[in-house]
């Protein structure tokens, strides 16, 4: 399926881009994160296990067990620091 992946803050800087469109076989957010971790380059390092990474699915905070769907929007970002 085809999905949009967005990056914010320190993860956006590491990725060198704010978004990309991906063709993926992953079915959950956890699998997608692992898939991106295994890619060579700085994006994978920024998403490494043990790093504080938060996720959103279709613009709602989500945990990694959530299921992907064709056309969905996934975002990876560090813990939020507004206010």
């Amino acid at each position, binding site marked *: 399926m085809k999905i949009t992946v967005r990056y914010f803050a320190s993860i956006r800087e590491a990725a060198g881009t704010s978004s990309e469109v991906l063709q993926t076989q992953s079915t959950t957010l956890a699998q997608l994160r692992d898939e991106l971790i295994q890619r060579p380059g700085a994006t994978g390092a920024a998403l490494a296990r043990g790093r*504080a990474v938060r996720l959103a699915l279709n*613009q*709602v905070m989500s945990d990694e067990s959530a299921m992907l769907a064709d056309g969905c929007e996934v975002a990876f*970002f*560090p*813990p*939020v*620091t*507004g*206010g």
Partner: protein
Amino acid sequence: MTNPRVSIQTQDFDLSEEVARLQAGDKRVGAVCSFVGLVRDRNGGAESSVQSMELEHYPGMTEKSIEAMIDEAHQRFDFFDARVVHRVGLLQPLDQIVLVAVTSAHRGESFKACEFLMDYLKTQAPFWKKEATADGAQWVDARVSDDAALARWGIAGSNAVE
């Protein structure tokens, strides 16, 4: 209500104007509670250590998440209207950064709703701060104490904790 409840903007806001608009013509209102957050010149460390601050957000999700917070606040507290303004972009110490204002019949509910909205916003709304200091620019770490503040309302905060 015709006024927007949530605005994410680069420009400054005026507390008096925002409150006047929020309570305009509403004769039920007996209490208005507001909170304004400011950019400080320090972050735990020495004074004047923070020279400026860049705020990033997630257009779309940020607005939706704050709208959902206000809906959640309405489930918990008996207030009339709420207004949240959050600035993004480049800010300097002394600049206003966030406004939460709430109207209600009596003070108790607007005090509580205002504090609830701020505690929620700190840990759940997608904003990120990057501070410019003499040592360069660095992203601000999330605080465990902000999760603890949210936990007082019976909501498990897990923003700062891995």
